[in-house]
């Protein structure tokens, strides 16, 4: 057990350090860095405790007034639980892509320790890190959704400390006995049965019904803790963590003897395999070796070869576009106009903003993983970076406008008002400006980061940027610019939906904004070219 604790400590601290090093190379172990991180974390943690203390007893659950709001179970929990069950089942018994050892920890496998100790150490280390990372994020979200905090902690600890060891060890043992394929078929049949059961009951009784076959294996402990809460209050928290931890230790120490070092697969291997598969898909095309000019070469490679190429964006968003169109017509058919306006006011606007911010986080990933990762090529061989900055801006403005178009089409179909669709044109200058901010942020990240790994790779390592105040500050302009664009769209939709803006203004804005957008695009792309030519590039 001592070995497991040591490994857990190394895993925890190294995860923390690797996250920190993304932005502050080599600074974590200096005293001011540690003190700064501890203070920020402490403030956030105290904030959380205050929120829980202040609101836990006073806010009541709208579905069941006897329960505090932050304990809300119900449909959300059922759906999330079913999804988690299906995903973990699929991961261990169907796909077999086991993700156990995070990058840089393969060395642990070669230490003179029992395999069960190694497994327990890695599991505990990752669980501790994810929990510590989750707490501040959970606190932030708890301000908006009070029940989120406990559900998040519950799901993560339950999945990591109970389900993972059971599924992992049993799948390894079954594979060794040559029985995994049989179990895989059974698991798939179970999932199909659960889905059919859910659909059948939803159809029969109306509304959303999640089969207990899918949700109960996840929620049973949650309900036990919930019942205990009625009897013993906050002590149920401790009881829950104690149960989960004991379960983990029991499984690992009694069944861990079945494990072998070869049963571990690293994150890196899984990631590489997936990446290669994706790349092979991309490369099913003619070899491209002929271009008419440097700008033509740039346009084709930067615009067409990546996930944000207009062609791929069209393919990716077409089903969403058609789906939203169909949904809009269905809703229009069933809902009276006054509910429709209320629906848009309450739900569409937050959804639009969330969608937009999500899209912008994707942009930064693409920028760091592809476009800017090879900036040295352009700095050395292209020489004049104005071509590059123009193409780069164009790529993200198009991608941004595609997302805006989908939302506008959905809103226009809901309202049957063509003026709503003109939102695409009206918010185009805001799109151009926010794309410029995103690109500048990415360049700033590029300059600071030791390696230009996309944020998603940091997440893959179990890291969450919430812990890193520097990364948060760097992401701030990104989030603000995303919110700005999509808030302006949301505001426009709101005004048009409620008839608060005369059509003459809409027409004027639609005519002038393409011109404004083009001027802004030219101005910002030349500014960006200067920054790209000046910024330090770590190859």
């Amino acid at each position, binding site marked *: 057990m001592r070995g497991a604790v040591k490994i857990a400590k190394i895993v925890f601290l190294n995860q923390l350090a690797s996250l920190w090093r993304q932005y502050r190379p080599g600074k974590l172990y200096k005293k001011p860095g540690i003190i700064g991180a501890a203070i920020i974390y402490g403030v956030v943690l105290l904030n959380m405790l205050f929120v829980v203390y202040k609101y836990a007893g006073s806010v009541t659950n709208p579905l069941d007034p006897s329960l505090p709001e932050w304990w809300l179970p119900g449909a959300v929990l059922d759906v999330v639980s079913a999804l988690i069950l299906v995903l973990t089942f699929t991961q261990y018994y169907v796909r077999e892509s086991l993700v156990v050892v995070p990058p840089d920890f393969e060395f642990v496998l070669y230490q003179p320790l029992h395999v069960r100790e190694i497994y327990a150490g890695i599991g505990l280390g990752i669980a501790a890190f994810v929990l510590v990372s989750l707490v501040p994020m959970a606190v932030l979200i708890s301000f908006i959704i009070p029940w989120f905090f406990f559900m998040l902690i519950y799901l993560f600890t339950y999945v990591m400390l109970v389900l993972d060891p059971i599924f992992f060890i049993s799948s390894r043992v079954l594979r060794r006995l040559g029985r995994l394929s049989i179990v895989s078929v059974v698991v798939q049949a179970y999932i199909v049965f659960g889905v059919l059961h859910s659909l059948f009951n939803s159809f029969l009784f109306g509304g959303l019904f999640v089969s207990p076959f899918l949700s109960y294996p996840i929620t049973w402990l949650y309900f036990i803790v919930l019942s205990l809460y009625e009897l013993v209050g906050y002590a149920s928290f401790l009881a829950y963590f104690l149960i989960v931890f004991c379960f983990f230790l029991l499984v690992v120490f009694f069944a861990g003897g079945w494990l072998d070092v070869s049963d571990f697969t690293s994150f890196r291997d899984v990631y590489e395999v997936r990446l290669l598969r994706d790349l092979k898909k991309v490369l099913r095309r003619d070899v491209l070796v002929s271009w008419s000019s440097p700008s033509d070469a740039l346009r084709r490679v930067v615009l067409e070869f990546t996930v944000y190429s207009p062609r791929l964006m069209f393919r990716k968003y077409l089903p969403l576009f058609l789906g939203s169109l169909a949904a809009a017509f269905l809703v229009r058919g069933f809902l009276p106009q006054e509910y429709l306006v209320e629906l848009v006011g309450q739900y569409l606007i937050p959804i639009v903003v969330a969608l937009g911010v999500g899209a912008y986080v994707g942009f930064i990933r693409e920028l760091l993983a592809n476009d800017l990762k090879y900036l040295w090529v352009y700095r*050395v061989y292209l020489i004049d970076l104005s071509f590059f900055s123009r193409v780069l801006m164009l790529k993200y403005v198009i991608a941004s406008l595609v997302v805006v178009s989908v939302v506008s089409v959905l809103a226009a179909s809901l309202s049957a008002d063509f003026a709503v669709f003109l939102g695409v044109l009206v918010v185009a200058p805001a799109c151009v400006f926010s794309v410029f901010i995103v690109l500048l942020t990415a360049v700033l990240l590029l300059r600071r980061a030791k390696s230009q790994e996309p944020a998603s790779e940091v997440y893959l390592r179990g890291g969450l940027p919430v812990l890193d105040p520097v990364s948060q500050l760097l992401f701030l302009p990104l989030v603000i610019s995303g919110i700005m664009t999509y808030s302006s769209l949301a505001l426009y939709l709101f005004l048009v939906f409620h008839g608060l803006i005369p059509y003459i203004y809409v027409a004027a804005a639609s005519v002038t904004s393409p011109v404004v957008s083009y001027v802004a695009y030219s101005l910002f792309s030349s500014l960006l070219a200067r920054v790209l030519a000046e910024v330090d590039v770590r190859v």
Partner: protein
Amino acid sequence: MLVALKIDARYGYWDDLLVSKASSAIVVEGLVKKFGDVVAVDGLSFTVGFGRVYCLVGPNGAGKTTTLRVVVGLLKPDAGRVLVDGFDVRLRRVEALRRVGYVPDYPNLPSYLTPLEFMYYVAALRGYSRGEVEADVKYYVEVFNLEGDLKKPIRTLSRGSLQKTAIVASLLVRPRILVMDEPLTNIEIDSQFMFKKVVQRLASEEGVAFLLSSHMLSLIEGVCTDVGIINKGKMVVEGSMDAIMRLAGERASFEDLYMKILGRSVEGSR
């Protein structure tokens, strides 16, 4: 510099040690580059002539890679200046880099392209059409034994193949100046041999200037015409290969001289 002066005084080779600044391809003067509190390059000066192969040698962390990145304009110097082909790389980037090729130590190449596409892409970025570089592509691909990898995604390539792809791309743009950071790391022996032949031919026949950093003795002793040994960001000793070898003494090798200059010995390291 102190060590260099001592050696000069003892052996009287100061004239030989000075590389001619006439027709200089690269002139580095008082270069300083800092990363936060760390001084990576501290007042470095040297000159590379056309038709010369200048090798920067030094221990890990000596500042070689940083110097090369400043020369090709990827990093801004904090002080001093770098002239490439007669132009200040900071103030007149476009003119300075027009005839420069570069191979980084860990080349990050677009993973969604194939090596063949990358080669033509780099040529296209410099304005060369397919027809203009096709013969060179064929020649260098054969020389560096890259045929088998040409149509694979770059992401799947070994480190050696990545390095060779970056080398071929740098040669395709008809450079007058080539800057290469440890170009032979991870490359197989036959390609190393061919690389040395290519470098010697381009330098002697076409007057291409090479600025290389390397730890490979065979490259330093066999190909380089000038050597600069740097440590902790400073030039310790610099000169033509012949002069440097005369410093080492008749029976000594470059390796012996290098150890002596850096004050390292087998006994001392125990």
